[in-house]
């Protein structure tokens, strides 16, 4: 059941979207997010939705997997939508029912807010679906390299992130195992009130924490045994290099970003 969590799951493949340099993809997602916040009207959002659709098509990820990724944030999406719908003051009220009012601006805001969040999440997920966690952190480390001059521990942060990402599936599997083992001893996670349900988690959380600490300890020992000493003077096995397709993709991203900003200027 826990295995169904798609958060950041990588779908291996060999499409142009997979082959792009991870740095390119991070920058493109950044462009995309900026563009989303600059879009003002139907035209801007239309362009961005179309861009996403084309990228999804190229990556062959499948819309279903992408939509499934929205499930965990469904609550936030609905909440934002309702909040905007009811509490945006507008020029004209479409519905008035006692203290409850829905204004024209409210409808406008609600629709575009929901659309914005959905596109934002699907866009980011498309990146994690087509980029392995390792190359993603690799790209991030290279992009942030400049910050090293400001004494930001970029390498350490990237290493921590790769380790965290690497251990998510392991810990999920571990949780599944512990849950099964406790269920085999008659543990009941489904029935009871909230307090009983919270108490039922103790038999899972205690072994899980113990094993997480044990794993951390083992990993640290293993890294030290191989003389890991941080990023200083460390070279890469796979050195990232921008290719022609990366420049082309970045140029296209920039054009779309500029286009959406221009459309936003006109308020459409």
């Amino acid at each position, binding site marked *: 059941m826990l295995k169904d969590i798609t958060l950041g799951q990588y*779908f291996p493949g060999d499409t142009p979207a997979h082959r792009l340099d991870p740095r390119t993809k991070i920058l493109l997602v950044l462009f995309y997010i900026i563009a989303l916040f600059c879009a003002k009207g139907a035209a801007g959002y239309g362009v961005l939705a179309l861009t996403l659709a084309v990228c999804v098509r190229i990556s062959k990820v499948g819309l279903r997997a992408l939509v499934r990724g929205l499930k965990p944030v469904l609550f936030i999406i609905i909440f934002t939508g309702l909040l905007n719908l009811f509490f945006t003051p507008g020029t004209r009220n479409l519905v008035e029912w006692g203290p409850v009012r829905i204004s024209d601006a409210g409808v406008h805001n609600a629709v575009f807010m929901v659309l914005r969040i959905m596109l934002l999440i699907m866009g980011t997920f498309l990146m994690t679906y087509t980029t392995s966690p390792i190359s993603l952190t690799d790209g991030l480390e290279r992009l942030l390299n400049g910050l090293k001059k400001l004494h930001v521990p970029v390498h350490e942060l990237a290493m921590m992130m790769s380790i965290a990402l690497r251990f998510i599936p392991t810990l999920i599997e571990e949780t599944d*195992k512990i849950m*099964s*083992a406790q*269920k*085999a*001893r*008659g543990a*009941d996670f489904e029935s009871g009130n909230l307090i009983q349900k919270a108490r039922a988690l103790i038999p899972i959380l205690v*072994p899980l924490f113990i094993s997480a600490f044990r794993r951390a300890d083992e990993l640290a020992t293993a890294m030290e045994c191989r003389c890991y000493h941080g990023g200083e003077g460390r070279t890469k096995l796979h050195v990232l290099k921008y290719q022609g397709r990366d420049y082309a993709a970045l140029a296209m991203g920039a054009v779309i970003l500029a286009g959406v900003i221009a459309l936003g200027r006109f308020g459409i």
Partner: protein
Amino acid sequence: MEHLEPILQVKNLTHTYGVGTPFQRSAVEDMSFDVQPGEFLGVIGHTGSGKSTLIQHLNGLLRPTSGQVLLGGRDIWAEPKKIRDVRFRVGLVFQYPEYQLFEETVYKDISFGPMNQGKTGAELDHAVREAARLVGIRDDQLDKSPFELSGGQKRRVALAGVLAMEPEVLVLDEPTAGLDPAGRENLMANIRDFHRNRRTTVILVSHSMDEIAQNVDRILVLKSAHILMSGTPAEVFAQADALLEAGLDVPQVTRVAMALRARGLDVDPAVYTVEDLERQLLALRKGGAPC
């Protein structure tokens, strides 16, 4: 063995993971077999042969994609709400069960299962102490934290946690994995005693052919989601060539017997205990064979 109503029946069991995703695959495909009451059944197979998936169906942790599991003649999924009762009747000990300990004391940890069963007071106390005794946990260890114990002792506590539910069928997934030889023999002796004294049905999953050969009445050999063979140890190890071909091992004694046979000595290749081979060799010697 007299013919009784089988306690556990697996009928055309199939389990498919990840239906409708690119990762779809069947871990168990159309498996059928019966388990008689009081039987000691061994299950062997390679990693990925479907052993773990299979045993998780026996106590209803996994639900079959198709097919049935019958406990005492009743489909365990006839009433999905009562699946917990099935888990008390079929006790499952996972691989490396010591990683599931969580309570402050050994006593409390062992009592987790029986308490979920609804046992209280003297009945609970008796179940816990009896289970601890069966696996050789001393009384003074019951008040210790399970995390203070050694690896082998932790494993015993975890096993006791399942035994304390007094299951009718005990399923063990590689109970001796990662233990030293003495710890292995000790734990297997506990399990054998438990089986003999209680007449509990035991299903033992193991990688070790020697362990299986020494303990079980009947063997089920799994290979890539199917049952490759089943029979008494003598029947199964008589097909040593087929086992080796399937990438599985045979007991060391059987390997010695096969090697002797290859050199022209007339020993039964299905031999699987040291005592049997010794008897045969002595008989051959008496008969005047070059030895």
